[in-house]
């Protein structure tokens, strides 16, 4: 199939390989979040709020986590207790979860047995929750919203764009006006307005899906337009004309001839629009209009970082979700570019 050959090409290029690798790693981490995370999303520790990342030391012949003590609670100042550490256990026991939703287990990649200490790879937040663990769990939201969202977008975009490109005439006219109207609206404004209008009708658990819904409603226009153009040009192809004259129904033509050729473009368009979703969800959650406390999502974690004291007291680790978003988005952008180069050398940016 075309898709496989495309991917092979992508992986042959260094940039493609790297970005694909990064994404695979990210998604693996998201799926296996329970395993990689030493603590559950909501595990608070009010004794250790705003704790800096715990240093790792070599002691007693093994890898250990540095022990800290709270020196000044009014400033959340912690200092290392020299010589004291807690051994890290790989594949040790931690909180219980279902591995891949299949079976219960308590094994995690790394934990510390000693309850007196904590291993905070990226520090802790305002209620003592481990930032690293939340980052992992939060990635589930951010990463999968993109995937779910583009399925809707590409479907919608294909339907509208493809149909209007194929049939032309009035359908095309109306559809294109609609598309232009959608593209004319400032995205974020519409996002907020939609969210505030739709939100009261849904419970907060369903918020996840509401957001996807909203984001896809906004995003499909661009894809539609591109696909329409493609369809238009494809339509002029000989075999399509032949099929038409042979009397094949439009649905069949669309399915057999046009769709396969569009697939590669669809792939490119999809990859390049995923970042939009990730950023959209992050923005919404950041504003407090998306995923709510106490679930984890990168945007939500960043909104905690907006507190003034975070800046002044230098709790820099609370900003790490931003970098996580950055890396994900860049990986997608690079991958998308490489894909595009592969699919259509004419569109290549030299």
């Amino acid at each position, binding site marked *: 199939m075309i898709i496989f050959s495309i991917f092979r090409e992508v992986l042959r290029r260094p940039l493609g390989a790297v970005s694909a690798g990064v994404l695979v790693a990210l998604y693996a981490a998201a799926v296996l979040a329970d395993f990689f995370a030493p603590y559950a999303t*909501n595990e*608070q520790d*009010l*004794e*250790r*709020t705003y704790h800096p990342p715990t240093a790792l030391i070599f002691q007693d012949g093994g890898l250990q986590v540095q022990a800290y003590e709270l020196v000044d*609670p*009014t*400033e*959340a100042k912690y200092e290392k207790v020299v010589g004291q550490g807690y051994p890290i256990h790989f594949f040790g026991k931690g909180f219980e979860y279902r591995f891949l939703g299949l079976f219960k287990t308590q094994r995690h990649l790394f934990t510390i047995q000693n309850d007196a200490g904590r291993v905070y790879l990226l520090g802790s937040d*305002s*209620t*003592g929750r481990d930032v690293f663990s939340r980052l992992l769990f939060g990635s589930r939201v951010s990463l999968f919203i993109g995937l779910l969202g583009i399925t809707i977008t590409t479907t919608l975009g294909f339907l509208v764009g493809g149909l209007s490109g194929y049939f032309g005439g009035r359908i095309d006219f109306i559809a294109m*006006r609609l598309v*232009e*109207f959608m593209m*004319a609206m400032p995205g974020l404004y519409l996002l907020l307005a939609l969210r505030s209008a739709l939100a009261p009708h849904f419970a*907060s658990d369903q918020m996840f899906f509401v957001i996807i819904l909203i984001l896809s409603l906004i995003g499909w226009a661009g894809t539609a337009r591109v696909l329409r153009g493609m369809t238009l040009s494809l339509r002029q192809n000989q075999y399509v004309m032949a099929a038409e004259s042979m009397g094949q129904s439009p649905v069949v033509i669309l399915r057999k001839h046009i769709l396969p050729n569009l697939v590669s473009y669809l792939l490119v368009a999809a990859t390049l629009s995923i970042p939009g979703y990730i950023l959209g969800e992050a923005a919404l959650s950041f504003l*407090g209009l998306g995923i*709510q*406390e*106490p679930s984890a999502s990168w945007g939500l974690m960043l909104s905690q970082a907006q*507190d*003034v*004291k975070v800046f*002044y*007291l230098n709790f820099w680790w609370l900003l790490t979700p931003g970098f996580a978003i950055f890396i994900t988005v860049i990986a997608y952008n690079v991958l998308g570019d490489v894909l595009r180069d592969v699919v259509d050398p004419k569109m290549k940016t030299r």
Partner: protein
Amino acid sequence: MALYPSDIFAPQLQLLLAASVILSGCGSERQRPSTGVVAPIPVDALVVDFPSGEFDSNIVETLAGDLATVNPLVNETLAGSAVIGRILEGLITLDPNTGEVIPNLAKSWEISADNLQYTFHLRRGIHWSDGQPFTADDVLFTWDCFFAKQLDVDSGEPVLDENGRVKYRYSSRSTFGQLINGQEPLVEKLDDYTVRFTTPEVYAPFLLFGGGEEILPKHILQMSFDDGTLMDQWSVETAINEPWKIVGLNMFVLESYRPGERIVFAKNPNYWKVNTKGQRLPYVARVITKIVQDQNSSNVAFAQGLTDFESIGPDNVAWVKRGEERFDYTVLDMGPSSQTNFIWFNLNPGQNAEGVAYVEPYKFKWFSDQRFRQAISHGINREGIVRGVYFNRADILHGYVSPKRKLWYNDAIRKYPYSPETSLQLFAEMGFTLEAGQLKDPLGNSIEFSLMTNSSSGLRVEMATVFKENMAALGIDVELQFLDFNTIINKTSDSFDYEACMLGLGGGAPDPYAGKDILMSGGRLHQWYPQQVEPATEWEARIDALMREIGRHTDVEVRKKYFFEVQEILAEQQPLIFLVSPKDFVGYRNRWQNVDPTPLGGVTWNQESLWAEPNP
């Protein structure tokens, strides 16, 4: 060229754009009439005993929140009170150190032997900010505004509502606040400078409450009182366009107001306090108040040396303190504050307009069981909250009265240390069981409820998150809702469409009777079930009776006895589950002299005596 869907808007668009450009340019205030008369220094001027200083400096400060009105009869917001409080004042005030009542506009008073009559002697020679004399007529007028009744057009008789109670023309907080057991005190003018109040029954806090009412200018507001537009006066419109119409007796007047941006006060040229040299106070020429979004922005401005006085949030003290050297200010710990935080459950058994109960019956059963509330209270990790959320700069609140109010604080009430085992015990007594980590009631319903709090307070959000985790440890699922403050007020006082809520109160006069709106079952602020016609439960009836006694007696020991019992009942019943009270921290720039911060008075109680080198 593509058809733009907004082509149809084009002409209106241009109009709008033009309009908005013009309007934004029109920021200048209208021409004010020449300033009023500056009267001579009053005979009875108060001589303030602080070292004298220089004139013409400016105070710069921030205000979180914005004005909705400048009319004290209408105002319901903190920001509004702050602004109005600069312009108006009352017959008495509180001593910043002892908290006792001391003279203000009234220079002295007598209370009759039967404790029913209060005769106030006003200071002579005081003039309003526009130069008109202040007399007893103004006091009478103010109280007229509170109690003016709606009169039937034909008969001239007072109009009655469906419960047989009189309807007031201009009902405000003061109207209800000053009713003593449903009756009005009698206000009489004895002469131009003497006013006598007669209370229908012995009412201990009258001096504090009645005397503390801000006096309104009769010569300005009389007309609108007569024609019925009193509540429309001193609106935001007036503040913007005709600020000179807002006349008061306090040390400042409103000079200008730009919504969302700033408020500027100018010195009242007719203020009635002088320094030991006989010079009219205040020293300060202007107060420039910048309007900011919330307390955090306010703290930030102070920490950068931009403002002069500030109240600092406990979580911000750490870093604000760091700027002390660089920006030349001082941060002080004022001890426990009067701010409280608490959680309550909706105990309103009524139904909404469609006949649906406010709270689902099976949940209502849990909420109304005292053991449920007690169990929840035991399940909250208050120490953790103090340490983690407030950086150790808060005190645990065991009950209604904060330890700051030393006189009235009952330490012997039942306390609720963090003890999930006790919670589970209490739940077991109620017949609840734990199934696979989920708590259930005898009917098999999972114990879960929603808690709402205001999204604008970061610390409340954190407390709510902690609460949720505490409850999860008990097997209870709590759904958190972060809403806008106004929405919350709506739900708790109008639609009653909620299950549990977390809010807090701040300020409040030191007299126990001040809490009557909260504690008495008919009170507006009786959060869990406000404005009851009859007390819903025995203990609420008992509290009502106790509160009446507190109002009725003047002997402190007697009042204390009753108030202690009130606190005990509240602690037993936990209608309000108290959490923590943040400590008070204030900051001021070192350039200010005569600063004398006290826990009760704050840092600007003696604003008239504060002075600094005039700004360049």
